[in-house]
């Protein structure tokens, strides 16, 4: 295939589009709110109204405001689109009726109109999510019409692997899977390994409870992840890739499978892509519900069909990964950033965000917050902007008490620090981490000892059991926290809690054990009084 053919597909796809598009989110949360039925009824209503020639009804991915689903948007050429929330299947006819401009728009019809001028939407800066909610995730043509696979073409036909890696390095992109390791540096390490069999792996395990960014990207725009992986494979010299997706995400798996088939059929994955000497094959591996498998060495063991047990590093996967070969592992969102960086340049990307954290970050906002869903904002946006301005704060006028970031490896940022800019370093300074981007808002009714105990229970259950500090330590920590919660603990127990946290942190083999005490330490730091209140004084 040539660039001109790619453009031809894009043009044809655009030309075939009808004047008005009714887009219905059929993934994630909306799907569990019957959005598939909504879409079917919309199609019927369009046919019944005889509008088949001028109106398209399309399935699209997540539009962000998941808690208000099913979401439906109506877009006409040159007109400001309308967003409807909480659409019920029986309202499909009403949505179609509003297309006729003489009919009043929604509201008095009982349709709920979403406010697109709300900061929830206007403050976003979509890069990773630029296609999400706009294109049909099951259509490669739609992706191509949104400039898809052009970056891959550029890379294969106009750039050397080194130039690709330099571009990624200059962009300042850091891994979105948690630790924020510089992506360019990681690519360069794998590329430097002697030629031979190498692999690229996409970590789509997303084990962090309360996080659903990766799920949303895979369900809403799977080709973008494939394109990023193919570019990475070219840059590091790999010809085989694996996407390790958690088994809890059947729709993401389905969309990925379809996307892989489509790109193979178009020759965009496979051999001699764009008539270059480059070949790459991408396969899916389905996880089986173990949080620790998100850890890179455990993930590798799991792809090899074994128990997902971590091993000491070094050697890092970059040197010795899958079947002992050099392996590049990146997160879903990391790969999703690649194609836009190639298309728009490293400088463009580096101009967004803060000095040390470039670009944007997708967050899943959940818990005690008015607008729950997905947002993408420039790095450095303050927690207040995210939670209060975009998220609308705690429902019914409640007060934010803390924001939990980074899941079981992270911590709770207290309301007093809500003006902190969200980037890798600032969060670490507060004793939390960015993690993969899950944000859970807590209010006055949440007890922080309980929250710490909740995460400890999680780590205890998910510990792989390989090393004793983690296997036994998390159990002891959990017991201590239970004792405190039940008002049975003494101040000696509190001291032991701290000592034990230190021990588990220092002596565990992998990130799970090393970070398991973080939620305890961070709540101790900011909410010590809550612990003291529950400790016996005599």
């Amino acid at each position, binding site marked *: 295939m040539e660039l001109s053919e790619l453009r031809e597909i894009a043009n044809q796809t655009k030309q075939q589009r009808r004047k008005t598009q009714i887009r219905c989110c059929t993934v994630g949360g909306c799907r569990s709110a019957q959005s598939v039925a909504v879409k079917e009824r919309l199609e019927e209503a369009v046919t019944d109204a005889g509008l088949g020639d001028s109106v398209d009804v399309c399935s699209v991915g997540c539009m962000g405001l998941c808690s208000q689903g099913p979401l439906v948007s109506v877009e006409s050429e040159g007109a400001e689109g309308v967003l409807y929330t909480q659409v019920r299947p029986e309202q499909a006819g009403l949505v179609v009726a509003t297309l006729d401009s003489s009919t009043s728009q929604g509201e008095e019809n009982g349709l709920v109109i979403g406010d697109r001028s709300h900061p929830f939407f206007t403050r976003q800066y979509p890069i990773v999510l630029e296609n999400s909610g706009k294109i049909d995730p099951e259509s490669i043509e739609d992706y191509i019409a949104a400039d898809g696979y052009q970056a891959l073409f550029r890379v294969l036909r106009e750039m050397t692997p080194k130039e690709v890696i330099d571009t990624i390095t200059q962009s300042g992109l850091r891994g979105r899977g948690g630790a924020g390791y510089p992506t360019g540096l990681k690519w360069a390490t794998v590329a430097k390994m002697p030629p031979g069999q190498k692999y690229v792996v996409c970590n789509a395990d997303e084990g962090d*409870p309360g*996080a659903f960014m990766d799920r949303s990207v895979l369900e809403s725009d799977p080709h973008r992840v494939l394109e990023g992986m193919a570019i990475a494979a070219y840059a590091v010299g790999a010809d085989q890739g694996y996407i390790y997706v958690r088994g809890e995400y059947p729709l993401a798996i389905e969309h990925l499978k379809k996307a892989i088939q489509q790109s193979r059929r178009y020759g965009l994955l496979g051999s001699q892509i764009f008539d270059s000497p480059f070949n790459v094959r991408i396969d899916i591996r389905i996880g089986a519900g173990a949080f620790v498998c998100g850890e890179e060495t455990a993930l590798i063991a799991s792809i090899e*069909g074994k128990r997902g047990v971590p091993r000491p590093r070094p050697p890092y996967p970059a040197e010795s990964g899958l079947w002992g070969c050099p392996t590049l592992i990146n997160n879903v969102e990391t790969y999703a950033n690649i194609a836009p960086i190639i298309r728009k340049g490293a400088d463009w990307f580096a101009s967004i965000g803060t000095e040390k954290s470039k670009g944007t970050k997708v967050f*899943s906002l959940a*818990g005690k917050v008015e607008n729950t869903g997905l947002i993408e904002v420039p790095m450095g946006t303050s927690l207040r902007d995210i939670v209060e301005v975009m998220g609308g704060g705690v429902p019914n006028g409640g007060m934010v008490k803390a924001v939990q970031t980074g899941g079981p490896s992270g911590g709770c940022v207290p309301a007093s620090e809500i003006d902190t800019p969200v980037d890798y370093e600032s969060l670490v300074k507060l004793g939390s981490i960015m993690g993969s981007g899950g944000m859970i808002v807590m209010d006055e009714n949440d007890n922080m000892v309980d929250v710490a105990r909740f995460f400890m229970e999680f780590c205890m259950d998910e510990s792989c059991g390989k090393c004793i500090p983690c296997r036994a330590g998390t159990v002891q920590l959990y017991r201590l926290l239970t004792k405190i919660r039940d008002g049975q603990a003494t101040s000696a127990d509190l001291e032991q809690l701290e000592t034990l946290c230190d021990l588990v942190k220092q002596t565990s083999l992998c990130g799970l054990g090393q970070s398991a005490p973080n939620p305890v330490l961070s709540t101790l730091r900011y909410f010590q009084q809550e612990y003291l209140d529950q400790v016996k004084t005599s």
Partner: protein
Amino acid sequence: MESSPGITTKPPRSSEHPSGDRRFKMLEATMKRLQYRSDALIEVLHSAQGLFGYLEEDLLLYIAHSLKLPASQVYGVASFYHFFSLKQKGAHTCVICTGTACYVKGAAQILEAVEQKAGIQAGETTANKQFSLGTARCLGACGSAPVVVIDDTVEGMQTPESTLQRIAEYLSDGT
């Protein structure tokens, strides 16, 4: 790992399983497609669980034999991952998400209510095999927390009452 002690007989490569159960034929087809590679173990277990509902000891032995893996490794993998169930599930299942978002929105109360009503703990099945109760750590639908999955249907924004109402009929007949 390479040499598998104790297994000397050749794996049966025909599609006939002695029991005549057709599901074995389908499982065999999956293994064939994956070229009986030992690293395909997890895909094979996924497929076996899909066909049989759970992974009975016999089934694990059959898989071990076919992939030329030690039975201990197959059992080790099957028991490591939460997704695999070594026990038969009930006719109906209710999985309550206990991830962070659901937790702060009251998943524990839903769990407690169902445990009490059904008289079983999470991970158990009622004596009449009609109902199993489980938990999951985040189903990725946190926007509609708390989330409960009843027989594969995801239900968001649940309360103890709404969940109990949905499962009432599965619990009524003499549990």
